[in-house]
């Protein structure tokens, strides 16, 4: 796992936070919600491989 992944996720987090702020200020709360949700989904799709890696490692460590 390289450190770039963390930076990428942090970047997406910042962008989503800014988007949320802008949209709520413009009175579009529902769209702000949707962007936050989209951000969560995007980050999840990025990290899902790492998570499955982690589970596989746990399994091999404890011989399950």
């Amino acid at each position: 796992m390289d450190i770039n992944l963390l930076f990428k996720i942090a970047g997406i987090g910042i962008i989503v936070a800014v988007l949320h702020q802008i949209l709520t200020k413009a009175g579009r709360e529902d769209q702000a919600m949707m962007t936050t949700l989209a951000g969560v989904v995007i980050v999840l799709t990025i990290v899902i491989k790492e998570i499955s890696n982690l589970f596989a490692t746990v399994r091999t460590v404890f011989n399950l």
Partner: protein
Amino acid sequence: MEVLKLILYALVILNSTSIGFLISQKYQKRVDELKDFKSAFTIFKTKIRFTYAPLKEIFEDISKSIQSRTKTVFQAVCLYMENENATESWNKAIEEATMEINQEDKEALKTLGKLLGKTDVEGQINEIDLSLTFLETQIKKAEQEKEKNAKLYKTLGTITGIGIVIILL
């Protein structure tokens, strides 16, 4: 390869920024067009009051004296008035106008057409005044919408571009 990638990322940001800019410009254009109509109506009123010229000539004069896309509407009215009466040609020209104004604005503009060329000078002037007040409320509405949305779309475009680049990185 790295340089090419960087250039493409820059292009993505540039593109989404310009898309945001274009969308925000629509609101400004709507306000401008409504203001053009307002000044055109004022010219119309003065011409009717002082020159007693036929409607077609007045419309021709107006289309010459304003610069923006609004003048195409008045040109279209002149064209349609060859065969149809004033009300029909005004409504048709407004309906066919390809501008940023929305349906609500078009309805407000159409109030002018209802009695166009059917009453005496006083009646015409009253009618223009009436449609000017309608236009005034539409301009206010358009300005409020511009305040609310123009800045939003500008920042939204840039930030979406940066977001896409970060995801692609």
